[in-house]
């Protein structure tokens, strides 16, 4: 990565974070209905930083927009605005945040931020003009001040004159001139400048155009003075000469320097309500580095098995080797735990992003709603979280658009006119459960079924359709019960995309509803990268992995124990119990010579709901396996038959499928 690449990454990351902070801050202000001076100062500082960085990167459109907003908030630091103005102001900021985020996306996709933000910038500037014109002159910085050197004791016996110009575009040249005067103070008993007031309104322009003159009385030799002058930055020319001195020219003036009005610098911590953005001792890590780390740790786990379970080594029966292997195993376990933990981040940032969605939808649909967040500290893998916000967005938009009734309808139904959307996350074993529920009108089963029939999506008889099946129709592609397609939903695009995205994460979606009371969507997402203990089995030369936890025992069956039940399914009787038999070669239609029970192995598998026997050719051995999800194109083919839980790479590099023993039997 070249130095330039990393600068861009830092620019995008840091300023992206700042935009998020800005958004959160603004939501807090809107909620409370006021902008405190602390909040204004924080908003100002964020805009100032974004402007500065964007200017350094030559992203002129972003610089212009953030500059306009910065000036607006700079004004608000000193002056209060009317309540209705604040409303307009926060709309400006929100639109700008969106516009700048869009530009960042373009940059992220190796494009250029070439969006035309001039209209928005002009609007902000026009508004700023209105705000400032309805006031007196914005506070002038300080009363005029002239700097006079303090009396230096001895009167100087030289008079020098210097005509000084600065380089083009060095900026604030009057202050540079002031700096030079200050640096000469201790050498001179008297200093005069032309223009005489370096801090006057037009002194900057005057000096830029004509340079400035210094007339100094000093007892120092010329070179002391000139070398001091040359310490100034961005000097272009210094024309220096000594002037003849007249006796009565020498004065020892005593003028005090007027005190400047101290500029208020509200440097303050961000409001505690925005605590999920508080700086903690974290560092940002490039995600691809973490991905690489995860992959390597997975490979280490596999390779560790290959080494320690090497048949030839095991034959040697070396005690010291076994001891070392166990230690190695302990360390790799710890390593994989830590690596997984690194990638886990809390859902809070993603959940709080939804506040903005609720706010926007609230404004556009005219329905008041509040978002309640529970369990925001629940953690999920970073990959999963990144892919979760789109589905959540669709579901919440749908809830606000269709689920929630208008305030009048709600009051008529005896509900609080303000709708409630609850976003909740919690851990459930090796999964995370996320639910989005609203207290709206709920789903209309009949309407859903009718639409399903009309669209040809219903395969069953309408009377046989259960509630859950009817509700899950809303996730079918091309489905929408609303006659009117709104801007945000109803096009049948959002919800089915949401469903697919969840499935891509290995998750599952369930919808429930109570008519009149609301709807809830439950999402179950597995924590990725599971490493399981597995038993390798083979059928017709193909290797499968069976989760070791589920295996009760394995044995070579005797033909006399095999029977058939009334439906013709094979069963085995063992120690007084009867278990159904599943032939693995039949499940996957694999050709194998091992079709007779005496030639193969039966494995007794225990699931939550039943116990059955799996018939395979042979057992190969135990193997620690890193579970990788199936590629999407394969899981599509498998469709609803959930016989495969994932896949893994064996020590020899071949791919092996991991059986889902629950799904196999169904």
């Amino acid at each position, binding site marked *: 990565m070249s*130095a330039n690449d*990393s*600068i861009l990454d*830092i*620019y995008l990351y*840091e*300023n992206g974070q700042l935009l998020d902070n800005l958004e959160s801050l603004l939501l807090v202000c809107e909620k409370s209905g006021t902008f405190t001076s602390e909040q204004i100062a924080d908003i100002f*500082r964020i805009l*100032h*930083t974004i*402007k*500065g*960085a964007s*200017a*350094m990167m*030559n992203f002129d459109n972003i610089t212009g927009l953030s500059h306009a907003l910065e*000036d607006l908030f*700079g004004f608000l630091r000193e002056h209060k605005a009317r309540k209705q103005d604040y409303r307009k102001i926060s709309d400006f900021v929100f639109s700008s945040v969106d516009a700048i985020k869009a530009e960042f996306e373009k940059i992220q996709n190796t494009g250029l931020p070439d969006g035309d933000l001039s209209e928005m910038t002009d609007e902000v500037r026009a508004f700023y003009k209105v705000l400032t014109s309805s006031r007196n002159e914005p506070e002038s*910085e*300080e009363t005029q001040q002239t*700097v006079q050197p303090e009396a230096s004791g001895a009167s100087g016996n030289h008079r020098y004159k210097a005509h000084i110009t600065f380089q083009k575009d*060095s*900026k*604030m040249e009057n*202050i*540079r001139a*002031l*700096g030079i005067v*200050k640096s000469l103070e201790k050498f001179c008993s008297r200093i005069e400048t032309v223009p005489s007031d370096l*801090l006057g309104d037009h002194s900057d322009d005057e000096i830029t155009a004509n340079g400035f003159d210094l007339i100094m009385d000093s007892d120092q030799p010329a070179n002391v003075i000139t070398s001091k002058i*040359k*310490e*100034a*930055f*961005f000097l272009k020319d210094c024309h220096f000469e000594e002037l003849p001195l007249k006796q009565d020219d020498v004065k020892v003036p005593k003028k005090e320097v007027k005190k*400047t009005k101290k*500029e208020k*610098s509200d*440097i*303050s*911590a961000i409001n505690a309500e925005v605590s999920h953005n508080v700086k903690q001792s974290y560092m940002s890590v490039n995600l691809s580095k973490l991905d690489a780390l995860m992959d390597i740790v997975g490979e280490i786990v596999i390779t560790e098995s290959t080494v320690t379970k090497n048949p030839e080594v095991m034959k040697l029966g070396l005690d010291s080797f076994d001891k070392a292997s166990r230690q190695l195993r302990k360390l790799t376990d710890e390593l994989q735990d830590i690596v997984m933990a690194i990638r886990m981040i809390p859902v809070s940032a993603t959940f709080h992003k939804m506040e903005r969605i609720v706010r926007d939808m609230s404004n556009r649909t005219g329905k008041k709603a509040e978002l309640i967040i529970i369990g925001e500290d629940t953690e999920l893998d970073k990959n999963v979280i990144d892919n979760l916000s789109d589905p959540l967005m669709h579901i919440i938009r749908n809830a606000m658009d269709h689920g929630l009734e208008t305030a009048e309808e709600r009051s008529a139904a005896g509900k609080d006119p303000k709708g409630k959307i609850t976003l909740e996350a919690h851990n459930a074993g090796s999964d995370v459960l996320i639910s989005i529920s609203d207290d709206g009108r709920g789903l209309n089963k009949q309407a859903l079924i009718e639409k399903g029939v009309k669209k040809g999506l219903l395969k069953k008889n309408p009377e046989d359709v259960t509630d859950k099946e009817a509700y899950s129709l809303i996730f079918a592609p091309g489905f929408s019960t609303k006659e009117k397609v709104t801007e945000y939903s109803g096009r049948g695009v959002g919800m089915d995309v949401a469903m697919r995205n969840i499935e891509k994460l290995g998750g599952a979606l369930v919808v429930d509803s109570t008519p009149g009371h609301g709807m809830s969507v439950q999402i179950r997402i597995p924590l990725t990268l599971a490493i399981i203990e597995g038993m390798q089995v083979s059928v017709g030369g193909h290797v499968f992995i069976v989760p070791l936890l589920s295996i009760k025992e394995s044995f070579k069956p005797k033909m006399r124990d095999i029977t058939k039940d009334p439906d013709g399914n094979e069963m085995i009787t063992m120690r007084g119990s009867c278990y159904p038999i599943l032939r693995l070669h039949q499940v996957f239609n694999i050709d194998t010579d091992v079709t007779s029970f005496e030639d193969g192995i039966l494995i007794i598998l225990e699931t939550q709901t039943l116990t059955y026997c799996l018939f395979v050719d042979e057992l190969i051995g135990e193997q620690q396996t890193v579970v990788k999800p199936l590629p999407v194109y394969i899981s599509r083919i498998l469709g609803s038959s959930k016989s495969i839980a994932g896949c893994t790479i064996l020590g020899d590099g071949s791919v092996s499928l991991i059986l889902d023993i629950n799904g196999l039997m169904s």
Partner: protein
Amino acid sequence: MKKVLIVDDAAFMRVSIKNMLTKNGYEVVGEAENGKVALQKYQDLGPDVVTMDITMPEMDGLTSLKKILELDPGANIVMISAMGQESMVREAVLSGAKGFIVKPFKEDVITAALNNLP
């Protein structure tokens, strides 16, 4: 090689300045994200030059400038300002900042400025 302490609350600016200065023969001995940390690091690292942003949380550049000069009146502190910060820059200059540069700036500008320091 002149030793530099870079003070700015934006990581982006710190990295940008670091790159520019390192390419031009300076050694960046430390970074600080606010004036308070700058004060501490100045004492710990004893740099030859400090680049000081003005607007920072906790302690701004102006306050930090004054505090560092209290400890070391000869400190070479260069303010990094934005347009519109005239009064703060003025106060900085009057308080003893060796000079200032205005954002946005290119590599040659900041290099010329620092090279000019005694």
